């Protein structure tokens, strides 16, 4: 039994196969990168895993339990939580209230939820902004709030959807450091990312897709050297060289 398993995932939108038979296993405690050019189906995979829409075919198993088709909030309570590529702060609530709302996930009382929220804010380095209106945060902190909120639900598996996009170089380093620290807490991570520097350096293993299908899987080095991956990213001519 693997920790997390996506098996033969297919998702059609009308006649278009956004995801067409993707399978992968994620081991407990690893950082698993999911890469692919624009429109290759990465976010669709996340949406299928967290049941924003049902997959056309295929199944998703978490710790041996079938989670395909469960409601999104049930999946979160089982310990699988995602962040959004287009950040979605609960705008007219404070940063702290955003995180408290998430912290109630573990069935705790208000005081406990508040403590969890404060601890998570400290951990993610956003405590100093806790009184700010979430909608007023700049993009870097909004991305951080996405992660903080997800972490406050105390997940076992965290799905990060392009958390590094739009960050400046120093924010980028901080984000990578945070991702590593989250893993250090024993949280398994699946990360979708466009910025190669980030995904290559934080991932233990990488799964590359294009047009909704698997291209390659392996260590960052192996995937980076894989001709079909290079072709997908850079075009056919470069792949030869």
């Amino acid at each position, binding site marked *: 039994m693997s920790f997390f398993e996506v098996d033969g995932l297919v998702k059609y939108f009308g006649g278009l196969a956004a995801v067409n038979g993707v399978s992968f296993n994620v081991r407990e405690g690893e950082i698993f990168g999911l890469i692919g050019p624009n429109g290759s189906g990465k976010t669709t995979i996340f949406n299928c895993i967290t049941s924003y829409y049902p997959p056309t075919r295929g199944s998703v198993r978490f710790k041996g339990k079938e989670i395909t088709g469960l409601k999104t909030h049930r999946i979160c309570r089982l310990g699988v939580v995602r962040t*959004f590529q287009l950040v979605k702060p*609960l705008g007219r609530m*404070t940063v702290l209230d955003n995180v*408290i*709302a*998430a912290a*109630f996930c573990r069935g705790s*009382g*208000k005081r406990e939820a508040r403590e969890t929220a404060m601890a998570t804010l400290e951990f993610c380095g956003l405590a100093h902004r806790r009184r700010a209106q979430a909608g007023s945060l700049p993009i870097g902190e909004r991305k951080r709030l996405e992660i903080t909120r997800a972490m406050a639900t105390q997940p076992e598996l965290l799905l990060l959807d392009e958390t590094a996009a739009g960050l400046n170089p120093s924010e980028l380093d901080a984000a990578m450091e945070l991702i590593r620290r989250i893993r250090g807490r024993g949280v398994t991570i699946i990360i979708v990312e466009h910025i190669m520097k980030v995904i290559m350096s934080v991932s233990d293993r990488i799964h590359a897709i294009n047009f909704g299908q698997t291209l390659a899987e392996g260590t960052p080095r192996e995937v980076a050297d894989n001709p079909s991956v290079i072709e997908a990213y850079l075009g056919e001519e470069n792949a030869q060289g």
Partner: protein
Amino acid sequence: MTMGAERPMRNPSSGTAWGQGPWIGPGILLVALILFPLVVRNAYYQHLLILVLMWVVIGSGWNVIAGYTGQVSFGDAAFFGTGAYTAGLFASKLGISSWWAMALGGFTAMAVAFPFGWICFRLRGAYFALASLALNEVMRHVATIWESLTQGMVGILIVQTYVSKVPYYYIALALAVVSVAGIRMVVASKWGYYFLSIREDQDVAESLGIDTHFYKMISLNIAAFLTGMAGALYMNYMGFIDPEVVFSLHDISIMAILVGIVGGVGTIYGPVVGAFVMVAVHEFFRTGFFGLFKLLAAATGSAMVETAASYVAQAHVLGFGVLVVLVIRLLPNGIVGDWKKIAGRGVRPGSQGVGQ
């Protein structure tokens, strides 16, 4: 996604979502309300305050589902009328005191809210609002057509328990205080956080483990319960109802929205302030600007002014419309939500705009 999310961003400096204001203001108001019927013996003013208190209850209920949870309801009259008819039918059909129906009115309103919410909370934003509007009209038609039960347009007449208005006043006051205090508690709890999260973004709420359908149901049922109780109170107090009165779209459902918007959506005391303002505005139009037009007509002897007076009395819906435009333009967060703005520098149109 929700209607709430489409509204302008709240000014960060304005009051918190919890309405954690000092207790002094509400405390003084409460004492004044307790003393009011002892000081003011005039039955007309007592009547107006009973209406205000009833609207505090309805407006607070609407505020839970629309203000805090972001599911704008245009169908509060469905719950209000159900509560009123529960009380009326109890008295007229079963001969049981309609006061028993005060509590029951809340539950029958929930019985309407439950299947409605179960089905219609699959809809979001404006679509849900339209569905609630339809519920309003469906209930009104049922009450009109089902004559064997409701006596249709003939309406239901019961004998009022008290001649004096004072007992009704204190019952209304108790109901209003319990509503506001209860909502204050609910909103400060886990439910409150969940309601707000749903208002701000349902997808995020789901992703954080919040069963959005379930909590929208809870929110709607709180609103329906309070509104149904208010309806039952209305039946007891007025002694007469018919479908056009208690299932009225503009006099109940729209009025409930106005109480919320004028006072301040998503604030604890907003509906309290809104109820005072809206009952006053309603009365202002109903009496033809407090009798100003009648006076003018008498003074000038002009038939035109007299005609105008009768039109003005019926023009309150138009007046409401103008008021809403003004409130949204000048005080997008309502009187309570924008209190700092009002207190700080007076109302300056367009200067401190929406959204920061």
